[in-house]
């Protein structure tokens, strides 16, 4: 029986329709933030379940071009996009659930925010479905534009507005590189469809291959900018720090996953040639990214800025996986995907919890504020410790398994030096992550007085994330039927395979 094409696109449609509906609803002033969140959540859940349905019902590995007569092959629905969509939608859901507390306490948040939020989820999902450079660009801009506004949504706070503008200007500049790169590639190959570029590039004349390499490089620059890799990471700390915490959490955890999703598709399917050209430069970039991020993270006093700086370090780890791709495609790709999930969980949990704690209008949360935190809020302190341990890659958390895969991949592909550099960065990260645990547990008194107690849905959600973080590190030795580490890795491998069956 033929599955109607619309089924494939249902997850996307649910989110898109939800976004438009929220925009309409935002004209009604009588609807509260809570109701708005609920409506958005309903659409996200619908999208999530239809996505899970898709993943389950089309076999292990599938790849389809829905509505081929309209979209041609611009949009692809495969296991890869399904897997990433689940991460993205889940990121949306969790961010909303965690942020609710924050949104309710800050008057500037109106219903338009949720419309923008859903649009950004939509854009990210479209990005991982995109099979063509221009539609990818449009998707990227949908997501980015929504984010620009979301960052500056609390317009009464100067820092927010500044961060928003900074991101807007720099982000648009980076976007231009993408367009230029796509144009170069089109000139070189007469196509912008992923999957055709690679083949055509192989059979082209010398002068064209130069163009294609240049175009690919331009696109990679945009990519480096968006994930805040070394030469382009200066914006990150101020923008992320200026954004409201739930938005920071969303950007660090979810947006990064979307970008990596698209670039993975691009690099795995098409960029053989560019990869050869880039591998050495990649190694330098990774080392610098790790060093720069570690240096930034060590010197921060504010917790939020430390987490942001350390997210640059995690970008470095993820890029280590990218270098391994040319040698060991499948396991490197799945190690990247797994690490994304690991980082997604731990950072969303950490940012989410801090945003919950700081909901009462404290713009800066420093290490010192957390002195003796475990004595007044033992559960929150325990959860925060779990996230720190996972970010530091200590065994029994998912972060360890993630690092394990990434470093094994690096050694397997002959880049032991990168594994050692990564280990050094991990070693430094122990300092700034453990410092928080030390501060929380080793002091008797606490100055953080206006911490909200465990109430509402956010702590429960964060608790579940914390359990997932631990579960992901221990795996499914004892409870074989419940998805654990192996499940995530197998899914990542299937996603990888699905990239190649359509060609």
């Amino acid at each position, binding site marked *: 029986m033929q599955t109607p094409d619309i089924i494939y696109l249902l997850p996307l449609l649910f989110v898109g329709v939800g976004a438009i509906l929220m925009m309409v609803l935002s004209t009604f002033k009588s609807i509260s933030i809570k109701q708005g969140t609920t409506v958005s959540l309903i659409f996200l859940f619908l999208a999530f379940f239809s996505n899970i349905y898709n993943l389950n019902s089309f076999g292990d590995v599938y790849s389809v071009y829905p509505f081929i007569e309209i979209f041609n092959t611009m949009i692809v629905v495969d296991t890869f996009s399904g897997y990433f969509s689940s991460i993205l939608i889940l990121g949306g859901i969790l961010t909303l659930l965690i942020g609710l507390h924050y949104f309710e306490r800050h008057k500037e948040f109106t219903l338009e925010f949720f419309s923008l939020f859903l649009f950004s989820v939509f854009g990210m999902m479209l990005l991982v479905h995109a099979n063509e450079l221009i539609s990818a660009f449009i998707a990227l801009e949908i997501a980015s534009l929504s984010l620009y506004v979301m960052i500056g949504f609390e317009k009464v706070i100067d820092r927010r507005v500044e961060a928003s503008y900074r991101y807007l200007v720099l982000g648009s500049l980076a976007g231009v590189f993408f367009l230029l790169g796509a144009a170069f590639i089109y000139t070189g190959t007469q196509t912008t469809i992923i999957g055709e570029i690679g083949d055509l590039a192989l059979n082209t004349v010398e002068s064209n291959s130069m163009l294609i390499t240049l175009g690919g490089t331009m696109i990679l620059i945009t990519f480096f900018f968006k994930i805040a890799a070394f030469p382009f990471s200066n914006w990150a700390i101020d923008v992320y720090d200026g954004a409201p915490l739930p938005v920071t959490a969303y950007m660090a955890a979810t947006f990064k996953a979307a970008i990596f999703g698209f670039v993975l598709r691009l690099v795995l399917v098409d960029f053989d040639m560019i990869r050869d050209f880039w591998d050495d430069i990649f190694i330098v970039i990774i080392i610098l990214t790790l060093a720069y991020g570690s240096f930034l993270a060590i010197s921060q006093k504010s917790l939020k800025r430390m987490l942001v700086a350390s997210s640059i370090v995690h970008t470095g780890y993820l890029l280590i996986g990218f270098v391994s791709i040319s040698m060991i495609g499948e396991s490197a790709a799945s190690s990247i995907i797994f690490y994304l999930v690991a980082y997604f969980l731990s950072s969303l949990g950490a940012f989410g919890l801090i945003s919950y704690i700081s909901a009462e209008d404290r713009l800066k949360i420093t290490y010192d504020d957390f002195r003796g935190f475990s004595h007044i809020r033992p559960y929150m302190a325990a959860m925060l410790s779990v996230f720190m*341990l996972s970010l530091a890659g*200590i*065994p*029994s958390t998912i972060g*360890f*398994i993630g690092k*394990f*895969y990434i*470093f*094994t991949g690096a*050694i*397997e592909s002959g880049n*032991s030096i990168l*594994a*050692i550099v990564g*280990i050094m960065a*991990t*070693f430094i990260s*122990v*300092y700034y992550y*453990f*410092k928080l*645990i*030390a501060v929380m*547990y*080793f*002091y008797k008194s606490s100055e953080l007085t206006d911490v909200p107690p465990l109430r509402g849905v956010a702590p429960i959600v964060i608790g579940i994330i914390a359990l997932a973080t631990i579960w992901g590190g221990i*795996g499914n*030795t004892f409870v074989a039927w419940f998805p654990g*580490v*192996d499940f995530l*890795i*197998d899914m990542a*491998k299937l996603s990888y395979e699905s990239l190649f069956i359509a060609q």
Partner: protein
Amino acid sequence: MDFGILSVIIFLPMIVAFALLFLPIGAKGTRNAAFLTAVIILMLTGMVYFNFELSGYMQFREHYTWIESYGINYSLGIDGLSLIILMLIATLIPCAYLWLWHGRTKGYWVSMLLIQTGISGTLFSQDLVLFYFFWEAMLLPVFMIIGMFGTGNRVFSTIKITVYTIMGSLFMLISILYIGVAFNNEFGSWSFALNDVIQITTLSRTEELWLFAGFMLAFAIKIPLFPFHTWLLETYSNSPTGGVFLLSSIMAKLGVYGIVRFVMPIFPELYKEFAPLFVWLGIFGLLYFGVAALMQTNIKKMFAYSSASHLGFIVTGIFSLNVYGMTGAAFLIIAHAMATGGLFLLVGKMEYDLGIKAIPALGGIAKKAPVFTVFFAIMLLCIVGLPGTNGFVSEFLIILGAFGFSPVAGVVSALTVLVAASFMFWLFQRAILQENNNDVSQMKDLNFKEIAGMLPLAVLIIAMGIYPDWFFYKIEPTIQHYLVDILEIRTF
């Protein structure tokens, strides 16, 4: 034993710890539960001991797949060496609990239980990744217990020991990953199991050297071997009694254990090649830390150095490549753990009662607390190696082993061991016996619980000193196995 007794020994304390953490039970209830758990584990360990067959191979194997895609297994087993260390831990911990009985909080007991899980897990692991898992996980409760309940600049010393140990173990992790990759390249499937990775033949000498160094760094920091000892002093003197007890008497030994369990079978050639280096490093450590101990006026710091000094000697024993040295090292692990552990408990009590750690401020304790003094003397004599204690047997054997290795090493170690321990008498005289004007009236003698906790240690020290054969026979086949099968050295 097919209900997975080793798993029970590992995870029972952890389960109890988490249950206690979430149940509304006070410090006393937690303590009682912790003690009960320790006693149950002692009984389980007794079962293991009596069912242990006399052979040098792994027994009580448990094997489950953990992470299939990378061939990581939950694989447990024990041989003679693990067995005696297990017996040691199981005996020491309840004894120590009796000493820590009063005035500890809930978090303290929970941490102690978790440390026990980490230690047992490290001891039983037969898979490199699983070993690393426990090795690192063990660090967290130690981190907590020093940081939360330590004295002095505890936050700094906690961060210091954590950073130190994690640095070592991260390099070990790289080595482990490299070995796994090498196995995959050679055999086409992933495995980190010890039995599999020893079959790797493709590693070049340079690679092996680096990997060997990665492992040795982790273990040398933990032991600590000269020159990786700089964390030692602060950590020991700022740790709470329970923490320093575990660190000195058990966790330091796991470094030695790790060398024997993993470095020896994976790199047998390098192990033999570098044996002279480590024999001499051990002897040097014995002397160096012995002299350093002599310089200390803080009693805890003094024991910290004396502990490191003997650990150096243990390392000499395991690298001496003969039956005497190795058996002696295994024996010294036990003897030293009991004596040092006991001494740290006694000193902890003294510090608690009197509030002082400096030796010049002490004196005349013998009169005030005679039972205390007797136990103190037994532990001390064991450390010094007086005949009749197990300290003598083990040190004698290691010296024999060193002779077998090279006569010069034997002579030097025989001389050094006396010098290195002589400060003990000096300490005993000044802090305990000598009458002076210092006020030690707050010092109480041991109560019933404390005697009950210390007596088994004292009895074992003497029993093992007089009838060492009773305790040797379980471990002998294992040592033979190490030497003959793994290192391929002819014995006798």
